[in-house]
């Protein structure tokens, strides 16, 4: 059965996600595929969500504000997934890294060397399904 949501509901869903992620969210870049559990693979880099809040929700689309780069990656490896935790390190969600895309962690190169800079190459956008 097809599902249909109003724009108002989609907006509410993204507002809830925005609130849950909150300010100074920890974005851990890790090796291996995500499993739904915290701390899978090797922690390569740590990016930090915006200090005033995750982002802005408009018409069911949540767009992140600027995310602070990691100026010195902690380890060498291939970035495969991200884990998102609150600023207090409570686990929220995980997902695959997207290279050059616009969904989730978008980094320009997944081959990370310890000490290098790791930063977003674009907005982190989430769109609520209709």
């Amino acid at each position, binding site marked *: 059965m097809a599902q249909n949501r109003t724009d108002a509901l989609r907006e509410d869903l993204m507002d809830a996600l925005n609130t*849950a992620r*909150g300010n*100074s969210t*920890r974005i*851990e870049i*890790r090796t291996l595929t995500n*499993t739904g*559990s*915290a*701390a*899978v*693979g*090797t*922690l390569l880099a*740590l990016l*930090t969500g*915006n*200090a*005033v809040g995750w982002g802005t929700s408009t018409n069911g689309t949540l767009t*992140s*504000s*600027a*995310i*602070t*780069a*990691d*100026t*010195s990656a*902690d*380890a060498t490896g291939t970035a495969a997934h991200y884990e998102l*935790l*609150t*600023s*207090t*390190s*409570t*686990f*929220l969600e995980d997902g695959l890294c997207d290279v050059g895309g616009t969904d989730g962690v978008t980094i320009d190169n997944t081959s990370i060397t310890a*000490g290098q*800079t790791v*930063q*977003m190459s*674009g*907005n*982190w956008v989430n769109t609520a399904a209709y």
Partner: protein
Amino acid sequence: MQQLIDAELAKMSEILGINIGEVWDYRLSTATPVLQNSGEFWRIEIHPKANGTGVPLETIQTDIPCEKGDARDPVKVAKCFNLILGVRDKYSLPNIEELKPRVAKINAKAAMLANALKGKTVAEGNVIVEKALKELSADIGE
């Protein structure tokens, strides 16, 4: 002994329960703490930084009840942070003292960046980051 107790009390009084950086810097450790507020009570998991399988090295079961919407409850988080402090040092990197000055510089720059990026878009932020990174590279000799 009293001095030690006073020092610990002073440290605990500084814990606000706002950011994990108050009690644990992953750059100085072999592990990272994760708070879990699902189930009946909060629990703290200590995971390895490398080759993690999702199975924690250590789990601290608390008596802090889980309630809907309490992920950022500063009182509950501060209690967890105090428990984290009790196990932190056994996961310290062996060369922690050598690393501290460099990590302090990285953290100071990260704090400056976070402040400069407040409310900015990713595109605006990237311009600021590029400039700051050049300064940081010169500062820490990389």
